[in-house]
C-alpha cells in the first residue's frame, strides 16, 4: 500500500513505504535512537542517505517519544490525535490494561497492540464477591491466555482480577512465555496448588508470584518445593496468605535463603511465629511482610518468642508494609513497635485485638498511608488515626461482627474525625451501624482527592441517626463535591430516584457504579444516558427497574451490553429486574453467558 503523501498513513500499513526502503526505519526495535536508524536485519547505519519524508521523521520521533509514556490514560489521549499517532502509540504500548474482559475481544486487542509485555485483565464486578452473581457467570481467562500464547511470545507479566483461572490456563502460561516474570492473581478462583506447582517449576525467570484473596483448591501438592532447587532464584515477591494449604517449611526456608532479591513475603497461617522468626532472619532485606499465624499455641509461656521476633524485625530496616496477624496473641504485639515508624502500609484487618492495643500501635505510625483495620478499633481508635496519620491515603474499616449489634463500635464520629485529620484521603471503605448525612458531607468536603468511596451502613435502611432524616442528602453532596470520584458503591440507601440522579449528573469521572437494594427506578436509570459510554460498568440489583426501562437503554445506547440476571431461574416475575449489569463493549453480546443471564437486544 502506498503511503498517502498528504501525511495520513494507512491504518494497517506497517511496512515501510516503497520510496523509503533504502532507509528502513518503521520496524525498528524499541531501542532506536533517532532518524536514520534501521532495523537489525540491514545492519547499523545505512550508508545511503535519502532524506526521509517528513511523515516518516515524525513517526520516528513519535515512536521515540511515545515509548516513554507510561500512563495508559495519557496513551489513550495520544492515540486519539490522528491515525499516525494511533498507530505509533499502538506499536509502543507495552502494558495492556483491560478493565472489563468483555469490553473487547482478545483478538481485537492483540491485533491493535502487537508489542505488549504486560497484560492486566479484570473480569467480574465487585459485587460478585458477595454471592450476588451466579457462580458460572463468566470472566474466563482461557480465551485470553490462548490468544496471548501466539500473539505475545515475549509476555512478561500477567495481572488478573476477579477472573476464573484454571490449572490448564496456568500450564499454558508456563509453557508459552519463556520470559515470564510476574504473575499477580487477585480475587480469582478455579485453580489449585497443582497449577501453582507448574508455575513454580517451569517459569524459570519468575520474579513475582502474588496470590491475593483468591480461592485456591488444595490438591495436596507441595508447590513450594517445586521451585528450582539449586542456584539463586529471581524471586522478588512471594505472596500466598490466601492459599490454605500446609507448607513444607524446610522447602520454604531453603527458597528464602536462595532468593537474595526477595522483598515481599506474605505467609499463610500455617507458618508459626517461631518459623516466621527464622524466615525473617534469613531475609532482613524484606520491605513487605505478611505474618503467618501471629500466635503460638505451643508456647510454654505465652509470648516466649517475642524478643526473638522483635530483634528479627528490628533487623529489617527497609520494612514498609506489615500484614497478616491472624489469630493474634496480644503478647506479640509489642514486637512490631520498632518497625512502626517506617511503615507506610499496615493491614490489621484480621487482628481481633482491643481498641487500646491498636491505638498503641497507631501512635508509632506517623508515616502510614494505607490502613486496613477491624471496627473494633472504635471511634476513639479512628480519632487516634486522624491525629497521627496525616499522610493517610487509604482506609478500610471492616466489621468484626458481620451481623452487627445495635450500637456499632464505629460511627459517624469516626468518619468525621478521619475526614478532618486525613485530608489526603483517596480511598475509603467504611462499615458501620449508623451514619449521619453530616459526616458523609464532611468527608466529601474535606477530602477533595477522594476517588473511591465505599460506605456500608450495616443496619438496613437506617436513617441519619442524629437528624432522623434519610441519607439522601448525602447523595446530593457526593454529586456536588465528588468531581474526581471514579467508583461508588451504594446499598439499601435513598428514598427516591433523586439520590441516583444527583450522582449521575454530578460526578463526571464516575466509571464504576454499583447499587443494590435501593429504590431507584427507570427514571433514575435514564438520567445517566449521557454518561454510560464513559463508564466501565453499572450494576443495579434489587432496585426498582423494569424490563421495559432496561430495554430503552439498549435502544438508546447500542454499544452497551445490557445483561439482566435472575436471582433464581425458577422464580420469574417478569415485570421486575433482579440484577442489571451493563457495560460498554466493542464486541456486542458475549457467547459464554449461563442460562440465568439474558442479554437484552
Amino acid at each position: 500500500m502506498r503511503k498517502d503523501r498528504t501525511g495520513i498513513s494507512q491504518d494497517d500499513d506497517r511496512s515501510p513505504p516503497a520510496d523509503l526502503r533504502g532507509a528502513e526505519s518503521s520496524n525498528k526495535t524499541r531501542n532506536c535512537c533517532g532518524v536514520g536508524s534501521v532495523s537489525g536485519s540491514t545492519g547499523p547505519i545505512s550508508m545511503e542517505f535519502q532524506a526521509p519524508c517528513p511523515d516518516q521523521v515524525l513517526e520516528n520521533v513519535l515512536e521515540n517519544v511515545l515509548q516513554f509514556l507510561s500512563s495508559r490514560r495519557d496513551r489513550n489521549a495520544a492515540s486519539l490525535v490522528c491515525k499516525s499517532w494511533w498507530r505509533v502509540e499502538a506499536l509502543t504500548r507495552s502494558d495492556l490494561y483491560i478493565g472489563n474482559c468483555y469490553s473487547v475481544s482478545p483478538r481485537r486487542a492483540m491485533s491493535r497492540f502487537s508489542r505488549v509485555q504486560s497484560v492486566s485483565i479484570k473480569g467480574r464486578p465487585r459485587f460478585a464477591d458477595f454471592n450476588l452473581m451466579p457462580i458460572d457467570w463468566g470472566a474466563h481467562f482461557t480465551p485470553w491466555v490462548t490468544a496471548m500464547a501466539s500473539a505475545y511470545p515475549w509476555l512478561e507479566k500477567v495481572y488478573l482480577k476477579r477472573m476464573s483461572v484454571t490449572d490448564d490456563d496456568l500450564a499454558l502460561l508456563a509453557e508459552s512465555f519463556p520470559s515470564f516474570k510476574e504473575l499477580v492473581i487477585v480475587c480469582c478462583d478455579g485453580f489449585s496448588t497443582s497449577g501453582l506447582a507448574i508455575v513454580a517449576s517451569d517459569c524459570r525467570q519468575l520474579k513475582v508470584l502474588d496470590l491475593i484473596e483468591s480461592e485456591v483448591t488444595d490438591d495436596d501438592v507441595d508447590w513450594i518445593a517445586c521451585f528450582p532447587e539449586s542456584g539463586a532464584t529471581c524471586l522478588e515477591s512471594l505472596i500466598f496468605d490466601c492459599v490454605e494449604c500446609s507448607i513444607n517449611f524446610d522447602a520454604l526456608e531453603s527458597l528464602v535463603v536462595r532468593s537474595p532479591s526477595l522483598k515481599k513475603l506474605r505467609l499463610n497461617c500455617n507458618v508459626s511465629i517461631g518459623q516466621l522468626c527464622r524466615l525473617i532472619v534469613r531475609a532482613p532485606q524484606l520491605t513487605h511482610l505478611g505474618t503467618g499465624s501471629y500466635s503460638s499455641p505451643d508456647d510454654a509461656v505465652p509470648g516466649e518468642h517475642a524478643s526473638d521476633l522483635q530483634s528479627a524485625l528490628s533487623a529489617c530496616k527497609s520494612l514498609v508494609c506489615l500484614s497478616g496477624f491472624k489469630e493474634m496473641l496480644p503478647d506479640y504485639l509489642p514486637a512490631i513497635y520498632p518497625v512502626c515508624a517506617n511503615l507506610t502500609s499496615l493491614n490489621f484487618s484480621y487482628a481481633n485485638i482491643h481498641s487500646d492495643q491498636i491505638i498503641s500501635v497507631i501512635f508509632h505510625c506517623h508515616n502510614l498511608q494505607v490502613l486496613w483495620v477491624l471496627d473494633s478499633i472504635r471511634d476513639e481508635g479512628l480519632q487516634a488515626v486522624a491525629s497521627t496519620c496525616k499522610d493517610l491515603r487509604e482506609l478500610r474499616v471492616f466489621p468484626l461482627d458481620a451481623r452487627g449489634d445495635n450500637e456499632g463500635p464505629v460511627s459517624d464520629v469516626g468518619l468525621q474525625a478521619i475526614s478532618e485529620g486525613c485530608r489526603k484521603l483517596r480511598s475509603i471503605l467504611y462499615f458501620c451501624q449508623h451514619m449521619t448525612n453530616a459526616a458523609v458531607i464532611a468527608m466529601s468536603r474535606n477530602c477533595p482527592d477522594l476517588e473511591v468511596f465505599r460506605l456500608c451502613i450495616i443496619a438496613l435502611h437506617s436513617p441519619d441517626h442524629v437528624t432522623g432524616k434519610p441519607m439522601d442528602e448525602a447523595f446530593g453532596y457526593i454529586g456536588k463535591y465528588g468531581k474526581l470520584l471514579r467508583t461508588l458503591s451504594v446499598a439499601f440507601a435513598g428514598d427516591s430516584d433523586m439520590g441516583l440522579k444527583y450522582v449521575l449528573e454530578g460526578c463526571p469521572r464516575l466509571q464504576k457504579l454499583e447499587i443494590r437494594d435501593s429504590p431507584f427506578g427507570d427514571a433514575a436509570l435514564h438520567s445517566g444516558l449521557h454518561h454510560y459510554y464513559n463508564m466501565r460498568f453499572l450494576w443495579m440489583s434489587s432496585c426498582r427497574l423494569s424490563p421495559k426501562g432496561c430495554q430503552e437503554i439498549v435502544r438508546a445506547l447500542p454499544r452497551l451490553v445490557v445483561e439482566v440476571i435472575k436471582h433464581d431461574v425458577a422464580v420469574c416475575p417478569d415485570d421486575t429486574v433482579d440484577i442489571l449489569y451493563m457495560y460498554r463493549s466493542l464486541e456486542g453480546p458475549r457467547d459464554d453467558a449461563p442460562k440465568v443471564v439474558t442479554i437484552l437486544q
Partner: protein
Amino acid sequence: MAFDKELNLEATELRLGLPGTKESEKQPTIAIKSNKRALPNFNEESCGSKENSNASHLIQKRDQEIASPAKAQVVGWPPVRSYRKNCLQLKKMEAEAAGMYVKVSMDGAPYLRKIDLKVYKGYPELLKALEEMFKFSAGEYSEREGYNGSEFVPTYEDKDGDWMLVGDVPWDMFLCSCKRLRIMKGSEAKGLGCAV
C-alpha cells in the same frame, strides 16, 4: 407481624458458626423478592416495650432475640467476602468470650471510660474498680435503700432503655442486660429503686 409468621425463621436463619454447623449464605429468602424490604423495625419494638410491666420484659426480650436473625437473612449482606468471614468466625467467638466493653460516664467528668465487664467476677470488684477509676466512693449498698450515704451512685442502662441501680439484679443477668454505666449524682438517683 405477618412477616414473622410466614417465615420458618429457624430453617432460614443465617448465622455465623463453626464449620459443620448450619450455615447457608447462598439460600435466597423471601426478604429478597419484594422490593420493599419488610424487615421488622427493631427500634419500634424496643420503644414499645418500655410501657410494659417488668413481668413481660422477658417475653419482649425473647421476641427480639427471635426476630433479630431475620436481619441476617439478606444474601450477601453485609458485603464481606466469605474468605474474611471465615477467618474471623473463630475470632468472633473468642471476642465474645474475651470481653464485654461498656461505656462508663460520670456526671461532671469530662471523659468517658470503657470497661470490660467480663473481667470482674461480681459487684464488689466492679464497684471497687469504678471507685478507683473515677475517684469517688459509692457507699454502702442495701437492697431496700440503694446506696446509702454517698454523693455518687452507680447506675446502668439496660437493654430496654431503663436506668437501674447497679446491684439490683443478679450479676449474670446484669452482664446480659447492661448496655452502659453512668455514675449519677446521688440526688438524681432517688427515683431508682429495686426494680425487679
